[in-house]
Every structure is written in structure tokens, then in C-alpha cells.
């Protein structure tokens, strides 16, 4: 018997969600809840922040190259566009990449190592993005400098604590881009985190590493772990050459934060230093990142995923542009 349950948080404000009816295997809109959500933007609704601020989220994976840094950059900028203040920390001591993705590599003068040594203050090491002033970047170290492992984790805790007590107020989100592996860099990055986003791809090697990392995170006391499946190809899923997102979830047993399709625009945006979510019009992957950021804000998770691409049905009036499909809130859907 197929059953579906939602993962709820006590502080979550939910609006219309979709429930699953086993008979016809479709989703029907439930009765609208009485909770009223105030709209801060004139035409679009702003997501309601849930949980205690600042929310310190570590974005990790175990395996390298699955999209942690891309996720950090895009989700971080999406959060800034929603109106939340974000500080993104690149916790990779030796190999720094987050600044490249954001196009801020020429503006990083000071890092946390300089702050620890007393060469600058913490606010001087923060790089504010000129496109979205609510987004700031902080790098742990420059590529050739070494950081003592003795207080690597402590230093991050001090940094987060200092950010909480800064004059302009604590940031709403602190995103920590974790390095690959499970050694000292990983331990340093997860030290101040309260929740984690596990990025994985639908292949067996990534899944095994992700499972290991999840176990380590739970051992360290981080219980709120959500999963993002990256580089999904629906054509390969249809041809059964790739595991589906549901298979991945069955193997890892984690709630889904987002599903990001394979998109060549990711590589172009990386090379340009212009994150995907800033593209106009938005791409498929960009929309998926934005929706994942929305769920992160509201501590929500997906309840339906996209399986495969289908041929588009053209109605009689499709010649005139648009179609008769109505727009609805698709918050819980895969894309």
C-alpha cells in the first residue's frame, strides 16, 4: 500500500499542499489552511522564514564534483533575492572555488586566516556582492596558506558567533560550503552547523559516499539533513540507465530538498562567474535551485518528483500561444 507522509516542522507555516490519493495516483489539492501568509512583495509572495536565525547550514556531499559549490552559490543568491541576508563561507582550506563561481575572485583580499592573525577585522574580510547587497562571501584561507587544525573548527564557531553579534544584525542564513572528503576540512566545516544539505548525484559511488557522510553528520549531532539530487537526466531515467530520484531516496532515506536537472548552462555560468539563478529568462536548473531555496527557508521538503519528459500535447488553441493549463502553486513538486 502506498502511503505518503509530509515531514513537518513545528515552526513551519504551510500553505496549500498537495495530498496523495492512492486510487488514481494523482495529486489533489487539499483544503486550504486558515493560516494567512502576509505578502511582502506587491505581486509575489515571499517565503516565510522558519526556524531560529541565523540558520547555519552546511552543504556537503562526501564525493567531490557533485555540485556542492554550485548549490551553495545558487541557493545563496536565491535566498538573497528572496530578501534574506546570507553569508556564504567557503570552508575549503586548500582549494577555494566559491569566489570563482560568484565572480568575486578579484575582490577577496582577506580571509579568516588573516582575521585570526589580526591582519584585519572580520567585517573587512566579508566580500559583499554588488548585484545583491544582502549576499556576502567569506573565504577561510588563501590557496597557499595553512590553517592549524587544532582550532579550525573553533575558529568557524567564533566566526559564526561574531556574525550573530555584528552591528547590522545577525544574518538570516550562514551557508558553509564543505570541502570534499571526510577528513579535517569536513570536520572543520560541520562544526558550527545546525542542519545539513547533502548533495548527491544518482550514481552508486556518490550514493555510497553520501550515506557515509550522513552517518558522520548524525554522529556529530546534526539531525536535520535534507538531500539534493543533482545532475538528473530524465531521458536516462526513462531508459533505465540512471537511478530515479525515488530510488535514490529509497537508498538514503532522506527528505528531498530539491532535484536539479542536468543543464549545460551550469558550466557556462561557472565560467562566466554569473550564477544560474540570475539568468533571465530562468533555466530549468535555475528554477529548480530557486524552488529548493524556497523549501529551505520554509523547512519544507518535496512530496512529488518529476519522472520523465513527455511529448507536449498541443490543443486546438495552442496556435494562438499559451494553453489552457492553469497556473497553480507547485511548491511541492520536483521543479
Amino acid at each position, binding site marked *: 500500500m502506498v502511503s505518503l507522509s509530509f515531514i513537518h516542522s513545528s515552526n513551519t507555516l504551510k500553505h496549500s499542499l498537495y495530498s496523495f490519493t492512492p486510487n488514481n495516483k494523482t495529486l489533489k489539492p487539499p483544503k486550504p489552511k486558515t493560516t494567512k501568509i502576509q505578502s511582502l512583495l506587491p505581486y509575489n509572495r515571499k517565503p516565510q522564514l522558519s526556524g531560529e536565525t541565523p540558520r547555519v547550514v552546511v552543504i556537503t556531499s562526501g564525493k567531490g564534483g557533485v555540485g556542492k559549490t554550485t548549490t551553495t552559490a545558487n541557493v545563496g543568491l536565491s535566498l538573497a533575492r528572496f530578501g534574506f541576508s546570507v553569508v556564504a563561507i567557503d570552508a575549503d582550506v586548500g582549494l577555494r572555488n566559491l569566489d570563482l563561481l560568484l565572480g568575486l575572485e578579484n575582490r577577496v583580499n582577506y580571509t579568516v586566516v588573516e582575521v585570526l592573525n*589580526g591582519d584585519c577585522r572580520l567585517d573587512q574580510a566579508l566580500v559583499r556582492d554588488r548585484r545583491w547587497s544582502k549576499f556576502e562571501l567569506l573565504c577561510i584561507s588563501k590557496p597557499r596558506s595553512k590553517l592549524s587544525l587544532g582550532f579550525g573548527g573553533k575558529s568557524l564557531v567564533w566566526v559564526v558567533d561574531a556574525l550573530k553579534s555584528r552591528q547590522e544584525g545577525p544574518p538570516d542564513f550562514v551557508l558553509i560550503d564543505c570541502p570534499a572528503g571526510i577528513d579535517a576540512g569536513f570536520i572543520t566545516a560541520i562544526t558550527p552547523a545546525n542542519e545539513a544539505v547533502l548533495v548527491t548525484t544518482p550514481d552508486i559511488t556518490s550514493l555510497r559516499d553520501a550515506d557515509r557522510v550522513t552517518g558522520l553528520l548524525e554522529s556529530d549531532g546534526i539531525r536535520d539533513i535534507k538531500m539534493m539530487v543533482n545532475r538528473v537526466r530524465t531521458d536516462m531515467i526513462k531508459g533505465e540507465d540512471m537511478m530515479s530520484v525515488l530510488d535514490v531516496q529509497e537508498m538514503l532515506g532522506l527528505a528531498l530538498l530539491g532535484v536539479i536537472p542536468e543543464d549545460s548552462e551550469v558550466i557556462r555560468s561557472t565560467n562566466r562567474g554569473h550564477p544560474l539563478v540570475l539568468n533571465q529568462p530562468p533555466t530549468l536548473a535555475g528554477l529548480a535551485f530557486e524552488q529548493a531555496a524556497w523549501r529551505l527557508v520554509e523547512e519544507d521538503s518535496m512530496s512529488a518528483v518529476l519522472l520523465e519528459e513527455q511529448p507536449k500535447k498541443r490543443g486546438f488553441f495552442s496556435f494562438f500561444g499559451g494553453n489552457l493549463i492553469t497556473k497553480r502553486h507547485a511548491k511541492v513538486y520536483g521543479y
Partner: protein
Amino acid sequence: MASVWAIQYHFVPLQPSIRIRVTKHGIPSSVVQFTYGNRLNTKRKFLCRAINASMGPSEELPQPTVDQAVKTDNDDAVTKKFHRIINSLPPSVAFLTKRHAGINFAIGFCIAIACFVVAVRVYVWRKAMYSHPGSVADLVRRGQLRSDRRGISRPLNYEDPFNNPLVKVDKGNSTVEICGKVYRLAPVTLTKEEQAIHQKRRSRAYQWKRPTIFLKDGDSIPPDVDPDAVRWIPANHPFATTASDIDENLAQNNVYQKHGVPFRIKAEHEALQKKLEALQNEQKLNKLVIDSSNAKDFERSFKLNSKSWETVEQSNFDNQEANSKPRKPDHAPNSFGSSSSSEKERA
């Protein structure tokens, strides 16, 4: 019949046939024949004469030849044939085309305008796509200039990723269209019980304690430390070190500092200042020692080094504040004092 004649009058094809005939004199001339009715033919011939009149008074109008007459007969046959075709058309078409000739012209004009508008829009779109590098719009697009601070550009509009024209859910909620592609939906099947099972499995498989002590290869474990909490760092690790050059308390204070000059900058500044002060003090003393008269005396003493020690003594006695005085008792008065002064002069 009159109407048929009228139709015929309008539907005679405008196919002027231009033939170039060479007269017996070898002069090419152009003869234009029109297959109109007689009245129009007369008018056109008159025009031809008027045009051909510009050829010159010496040239004569070409006289119709026998060949010309034969061809005229052929043309008449063609015309008659065409008239028969026209007569065979349904009267409504003819009627419509006759009545709506003006509308046809209007329709054609509208189509032309629409094509022109489409061309202009494509041109504008292409121009927007490939804007000149270095333009202000390019700077705004690259993020060097903020668009919200500029009065000329529109502010970036945020679009809800769910309530978005690019995201459309069908009525049955079984498919969703995103960015023009349609996908089939499937519900998530993970339950809380299954999640708990996975957590138990992982807690059994991965036992891990956070390391509190970091040791290099070869170091001994302290006696009161849990071995599980020790982390060994290889000696050749490129980006890791167990040695810290800075005190932990000091590092923490540096992180929490919100105002003022950072610690190291301040320390360096103070050290530089001290050094400068010390140098300045030294220079003052040096200035006091090296007096112009004294310098001359020293020069003399240098020159007269071999001569007498007494003159040197006298000059030194005159200058009571000389720096070299305290050195004198320490060194041999003759040679070293003079050599030291010479070294100073050389310096």
C-alpha cells in the same frame, strides 16, 4: 453583355510585348504593341510616337511590315483565347475581385506593414542581444553597476519560482510543464518509519567521534586522551598543520573585534614607530657628533695623522660634546681614533 464587355475591359492582361525590330536601314527601333482595346491602343501609339520623337528628326517611324501584321494576328488569337478563359470563370469570383480590389490593396498593405513590424522587432531583439561591449547596459548586466540605483534601467523583478508563467501544472496534477518541457509527476514514497530504519542502520555502521587532539606522525598520545578522539595528520599534508603560530585566546579576540585597527597591524605599527624613534634618537646623537668644525679638524688630523697627536688632542679638547670622546679612553688615541673618524668620513 455590357457587363461582360466591362469585365473584358478590365481583365485584358497587361502584357505589353516589346519587340525590337531592325528596319531596312539597320537602325534598331523599339515598337511597343499593346493588346488593349482600340481606344487604349491609339493612346499608347501616340505615347510611343512622343517617346520616339526624341530619337531625332532624321529617323522615321518604323513602318509596319508583313511580319508585324502576322504577329498581330497571332496576338489577337491569344487574346481571344484568354477572353474565353475569363468568361468561363464563375461570375462571383470575378464579381468579388472587381468589387474588392480596394480591399485587396488594403490587405496587401497590412501584410506589408506586419512584415515590416516583425523585421523591426527582430532587429531590435538582435541588437539587444549583441549589445556593444563596454556599454552601460553591459556593465549593468555584468554586475559592475547596480541597476536599482540607476534611473534609466528597470529594477530586477523577482519572480516566484512556483507561481511562475514557466511552471504550469495540469488540471489532473499528473504532469507539469516547466520551461516548455512537460514532465510526468510521481509522489514521494518515503515514510517516517523508513527514515528511522535508515538512521538506525547508519548509527550501527558509522561510529564516529569528533577528534579533539590533532597529532603529527610520530607524536605520542597524551595519557589522558581518548584514542578515538585523536586525529593523525600526515607530515607532508599541504594544507594542514598542527602547529599554531598564534595564541588561541588572541585569535578569538581578533575574530570578535569589531572596531579599531586589527591586532597585527597595530603591533606592526607600534614596532615601526619604536624603530623610528630609536633611529631618530640615533640621528640626533650623530648630528651632535659630526660638527662642521669638528669635521674639518678631523680632516686635518687625518691628513696630519703621522705628524702629531697634540693637534688632535687640542681639537678634541675644544669640542667637549664630541661623540668620539668616550671612545678615546677605550682605544689607542693615535691610530684608532683617527681611523674611526676616517671611517665616519668615508661613511
